[in-house]
């Protein structure tokens, strides 16, 4: 009991809970198939996780502030489109590193700008974030369809391939990018003034405003940064698939919200950390890879993700009740 208590304080209840879930999933799959606990399986998981992971991080901070960003997928697509069009302008497959840097810059600017606009609407016009981002989503989807006529753009320089499929010291580059952003996100949220303001706004926007927090600037910052992370995801998607198409990853939109809630984020905002969300992502990835290995398809994995979230929420509810009754008795 004391060991459990000590672990609880060191790692955090939420992390411990999710680590338990992850352990159950891993043990379950490794006992049912020998293919699960292998280097190649973990390698492919490490390549598949980052895109969903980055998009989830982009979704996470708006949820922490009490909102939602439904435009993330198309922000990523449009940013990828910006990168692609710069690369195509500089010769497609022959484009050099300079063109790539310029393209990345363009992608980041496009992502930031779309987020900035959304933040502006949310902060100054008081529009509900769900509605503002929904309108932005429809707009960006339309913009992408208009620009690409529904087709896809491909033919990127070979080093993009390395970025999407290569490794440094055995660690996949996409995973490094994801972990870097996750760490940055953690530092911003736990150790910066902006992060503090995010939590305060999520808890009570009125009270934060009266306490001298610049709520409008913080909200704009939240959506701009979310857009920047979307752009990084978009660049990674372009590198992974070696093509850009508007609508790529559309199915991931609600999965990112699911991952956030699984990671213990309060749906009303104000509470939640980066580490549990990363753990939740690992669990989802392990579930889908494991199900793939035992012969089920991605659709069954989607269903299991949904049922898993319900199960976890039910367990949390039961744990909270148990905690309450125990406290009352003492």
């Amino acid at each position: 009991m004391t060991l459990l208590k000590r672990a609880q304080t060191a790692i955090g209840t939420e992390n411990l809970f999710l680590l338990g879930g992850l352990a159950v999933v891993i043990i379950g799959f490794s006992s049912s198939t020998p293919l699960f606990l292998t280097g190649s399986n973990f390698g492919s998981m490490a390549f598949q996780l980052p895109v969903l992971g980055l998009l989830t991080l982009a979704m996470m901070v708006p949820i922490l502030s009490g909102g939602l960003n439904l435009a993330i997928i198309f922000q990523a697509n449009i940013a990828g489109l910006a990168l692609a069009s710069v690369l195509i302008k500089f010769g497609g497959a022959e484009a050099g590193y300079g063109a790539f840097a310029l393209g990345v810059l363009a992608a980041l600017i496009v992502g930031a700008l779309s987020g900035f606009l959304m933040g502006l609407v949310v902060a100054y016009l008081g529009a509900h974030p769900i509605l503002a981002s929904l309108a932005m989503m429809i707009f960006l989807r339309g913009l992408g369809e208009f620009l690409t006529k529904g087709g896809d753009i491909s033919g990127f320089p070979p080093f993009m391939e390395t970025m999407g499929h290569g490794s440094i010291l055995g660690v996949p580059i996409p995973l490094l990018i994801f972990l870097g952003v996750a760490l940055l996100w953690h530092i911003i949220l736990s150790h910066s003034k902006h992060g503090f303001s995010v939590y305060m706004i999520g808890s009570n926007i009125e009270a934060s405003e009266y306490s001298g927090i610049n709520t409008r600037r913080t909200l704009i910052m939240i959506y701009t940064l979310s857009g920047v992370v979307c752009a990084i995801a978009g660049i990674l998607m372009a590198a992974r698939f070696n093509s850009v198409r508007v609508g790529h990853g559309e199915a991931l939109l609600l999965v990112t919200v699911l991952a956030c809630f699984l990671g213990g984020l309060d749906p009303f905002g104000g509470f939640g950390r980066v580490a549990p969300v990363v753990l939740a992502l690992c669990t989802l990835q392990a579930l889908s890879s494991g199900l793939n290995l035992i012969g089920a398809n991605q659709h069954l994995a989607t269903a299991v993700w949904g049922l898993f979230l319900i199960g976890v929420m039910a367990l949390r509810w039961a744990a909270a009740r148990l905690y309450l009754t125990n406290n009352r008795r003492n």
Partner: protein
Amino acid sequence: MRKALSANIVEIRLFVVLMIMIIGLGLTTDTFLTVANLTSLLNNNSINLIWAVGLLVVLVAGGIDISFAVAASMVQYLAAQIFGVIGGGNWAFGILTAGSLGLGLGLINAALIHGFRIVSIVITIATFNAFFGLLMFFTKGRSIYTLPDWWVDRIFLFEYQSASGVWSELHLSVAIMAVCLIATAILIRRTNIGRQLYAFGDNPEGARRAGVNIALMQAIAFGWCGMMAGIGGLMQVNIAKEVVPNALYGRELDVLAAVVLGGARLGGGRGTVIGCVLGVFFVAITQNGLNLLGVSPFAFQMIIGATILIAISTSNVKIDMSSLLRRPQKKLKRGSNNDAT
């Protein structure tokens, strides 16, 4: 009268904008104000409207439902199986089956939301994934084309041939839509339960202390939304003449945008059936108008998105002006489950 005006300011503003659009399109194109165009507008949007009023009841009760469109797909598939086993059926039986299947799926949402005291967006995103994943898994993504005749045969309520020989007609779905609209309006505006739904959406804890049965409220709101989803799904098959498991995927967000545009408040306690109609037709007529004006179809979605963005922006600005002293509603109101332990 003034009170009624200020209480429905969003609807009135949208109505005025819609009227301006209709008059503008009527003057600039000679095809907009024709019987053929207006009937096809009605036919094409009847399904969205059925879903919109279902979602409205959930929004009024302070919840949100992401899962209704895939629930509709699920109902279509299950209904096709049931009709196949029974070998026949008719419209009355079909509506009863689809309605009860949808009701059942809605009640699953309600039971999870109330039972575990989890906010509706979490549960409906979970059930969205569960429903869609299971549906795609069991159907293997295959469509069903062999459907009973009564289901896919067109029933015309109204037929008219213009002088130039263009046929225009109203389908059965328009009549079902009208019934759904009226039934929803009666439910939320004319019954005791409707008053309780608004009270519950506006202030769940206050309503609970005033003696409102919150479990019943969740069941009615999500059950009604599910039932409308099922009926809408049934009618969609009548138009599409096939059951495609992922055909309705993604429609939920479009319907949500239209309903909220029509004045329903995310967070509960506000929204009208008229607003739903205006919201759905605002989007539909924008698209229809762009089409008739000869704008490239690839630009439709972009312009619609921009229009919604402008519409929500300006509607919030005006509210700000009219009540400068009160602060605008910035945040999702504490949702439907404040009674959580």
